[in-house]
């Protein structure tokens, strides 16, 4: 097991390097000069050639591409992610401010998505063919197909504007004002977890249906065990391996999906930062953001892989 984990970590590092090189090159291949963009905002004239050259030197953009990449990666190793062209401040500070917001949103939506998705999936499986199964299945199909930002707008319209139950937008740290923070998070967390709930419901239902047809489950029924014991002690662990894989994949989706949700609900998180950085050609933020997101996904997938061993002892012994 230890050697497996070490191997996975090295693989993860290799993946991260590849991802950063890929993003680095892609950003620089895009047409448009970020410095001209920064200077040329609004109803303005461009900077003179000398001023642009000075800016280019300030941000290290006058060096060759390999040198720029090496400078950046060596800074990352030392904990320095560089300076943003647009925001004019250290990227570490920007990310320190924004990342906890996205993590907060992401963790809550992951927890809700996982809990409700698996629960609904189990209910659908054990009540297969009943009206509960039909309703949850229809809702799951709707949840997979509707765009989350559209749901967000509808929620704002009904819950905030019409019923005045919740604030329209915004994010407050729970340490600053827990009550306001909770109210502000209801809608965005629901939207972010919607796809997760829907897809996990379907996946769990499918996996549970396969498992409950197995002989050992029939044996457990024959022995007179209660339904709850059969489901939670015998069936669920075997059914959850594909579900756990899906949860791991959704960690990346949460970061990606957060762009739209953060925009709709005006939350200053990583998703919105990344979107703005891409449009503004703020190379350093894009590179750093991708590195962080990729690291999160890699670590999550390693943990998911390790968890297989807990779910299925056969994997542990192989």
């Amino acid at each position: 097991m230890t050697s497996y984990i070490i191997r996975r970590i090295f693989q993860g590092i290799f993946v991260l390097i590849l991802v950063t090189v890929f993003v680095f090159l892609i950003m620089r291949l895009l047409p448009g000069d970020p410095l001209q963009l920064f200077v040329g905002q609004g109803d303005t004239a461009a900077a003179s050639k000398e001023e642009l050259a000075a800016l280019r030197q300030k941000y290290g953009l006058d060096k060759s591409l390999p040198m720029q990449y090496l400078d950046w990666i060596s800074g990352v190793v030392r904990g320095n992610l560089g300076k943003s062209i647009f925001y004019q401040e250290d990227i570490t500070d920007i990310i320190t401010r924004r990342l906890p917001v996205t993590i907060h949103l992401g963790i809550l939506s992951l927890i809700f998505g996982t809990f409700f998705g698996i629960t609904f999936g189990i209910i659908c499986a054990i009540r297969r063919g009943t009206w509960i199964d039909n309703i949850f299945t229809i809702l799951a199909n709707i949840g997979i197909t509707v765009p989350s930002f559209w749901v967000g707008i509808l929620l704002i319209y009904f819950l905030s504007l019409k019923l005045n139950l919740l604030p329209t937008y915004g994010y407050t740290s729970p340490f600053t004002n827990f009550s306001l923070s909770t109210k502000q998070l209801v809608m965005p967390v629901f939207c972010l977890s919607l796809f997760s709930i829907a897809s996990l419901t379907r996946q769990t239902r499918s996996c549970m249906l396969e498992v409950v047809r197995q002989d050992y489950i029939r044996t457990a029924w024959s022995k007179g065990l209660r339904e709850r014991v059969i489901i939670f002690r015998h069936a669920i662990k075997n059914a959850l391996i594909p579900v756990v894989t899906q949860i791991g994949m959704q960690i990346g989706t949460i970061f990606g999906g957060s762009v739209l949700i953060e925009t709709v609900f005006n939350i200053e998180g990583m998703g919105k930062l990344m979107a703005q950085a891409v449009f503004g050609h703020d190379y350093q933020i894009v590179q750093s953001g991708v590195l962080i997101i990729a690291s999160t996904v890699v670590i999550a997938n390693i943990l998911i892989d390790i968890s297989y061993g807990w779910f299925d002892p056969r994997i542990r012994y192989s």
Partner: protein
Amino acid sequence: MKKLIFITISLFLTFIFIWSGCSSPTSSPATSTTQPTTSVIQTTTKPPATQTQGTTSATPSKYGGILKIIVRSQVSIIGLPWEGSGGAPHRMVEPVYEFLLRYDQNYNYFPRLADSWEISPDGKSITFHLHPGIKFSDGMPFNAAAVKANLELYAPNNVRTPSLKKIVSYDLIDDLTIRLNLSAYDSTLLIDLGDGPGMMASPAAIAKQTTPENMAKDHLVGTGPFVLSSFEKNQNIKYVKNPNYWQSGKPYLDRIEFYMVTDPVTSIMSFKKGEAQVIFGITPTEAKDLKSGYNIVTTDIKPIVVLLPDGKNPDSPWYNKKVREALEYAIDKPSLATSIGEGYYEAVSQFATSNSVFFNPAATIRNYDPSKARQLLAEAGFPNGFKTKIYALTTYDKDILVAIQTYLKEIGIDAELELGDSARVTDWQNNGWKNGIFVPTYPIIPNIRSLSFRLAGGYNVSTSLYSTPEWQAKVDATVSQPDEQKQLSQFKELIKILNDEAACISLFTKPDISALDKSVQDLKWTQGGHPRFYEPQDAWLKK
């Protein structure tokens, strides 16, 4: 039973889809396949009367209240006037900073921090007499030295004000009198001093070393009616009343708060919910929706949407003047303005509105005439039209772009939309575009400053924009003309040249539109000579 339920639900959903598909569509802009009716640009058209913002009345309950304003842009850096994002100050700092002077949409100048000023006959110096008894919110006096400190630093920190670079020295005549000595007169200097460069920050704040995190707190210190309370980057800026404001008895409001909400739907719903009393930058459709319950305000100064063909490129069809003229004949401006603007935009026949002091009746008018456009194309050697591109920002109003594309198609010009992000647009702007029409992201304010900046000079679009050999010399002469009447006639001449040569096709005005709750009084939001202007010290909330 289950089958019956399933069939019922399916039939119901099918009915809903068919019903919604067959219902009458909402009004759409000029992209329909039907031919719009020909209309002539009326020289006396006026935009629809916007509701007034409320009149002053001396009631005892003027004091108190928090004014909340939603803006659809984001600001991550505020501090000194030149420390805004990209170096441009934002309307959100105006509760703190006041201008040396103000002007209206006809460029009549009014005193503010400066009581009066004189321009020497040769135009090489301007002497300002400052209002006495004004202090910055940190207690520093506002005087000639403070003006010098601000102006000296603004120019090198901001490339957008070449007028300031003409100031060669400052004479501090006395504590409240300062003379600016110029290398040459620049008429855009007064415009600038009524805008960003004219914002006065405390010299103590200017001198203070700070960090990006503390820049707002340390540097945002002015003479204005409010002081900074808090700033959350890209989220909100909150101001609290300045108890030592120099205009006695003002401001009336306790606080002003700006909320930056970029998503248009969220911002409108927040406004409708009452989470703010002002929302800036709404679309004409949103304004139409809000008209019944709120005051809709458009800017006094009406920027103009223009099309810029690359007339300087000999390889481009647009090099030929007849082709450029055909472009103007091809577009039904009044229909376009009406359908897209919902009554808030006004078609124009030149780079000035019909009721503007700059309007030149001698400039060529080209009303919608597609047959004339085809004739001109044939004369220019393009009887079957040609392929070209329309260059614009990805987020530019697609209704306008597609409408122009449709009009061009009708005369045989196949225009492909070439949309780019901000970086690409800046690149086109500064380095030129090929065989196409560039649509500036922001409409252009019709004054000498914008014209010299954006349609002339070594910056911006002049790389591709057609110009006559004497164009730059005429622009420079207009800029450096100290006599107001002569300058006015010179500027009118420039507008005529732009029009006659079809170098720049002016389509319609596109003022910023805002909605104000009816409780907001005397804010004069976006009124005056610049879309940024308003009067936070006079604003109050009707209870």
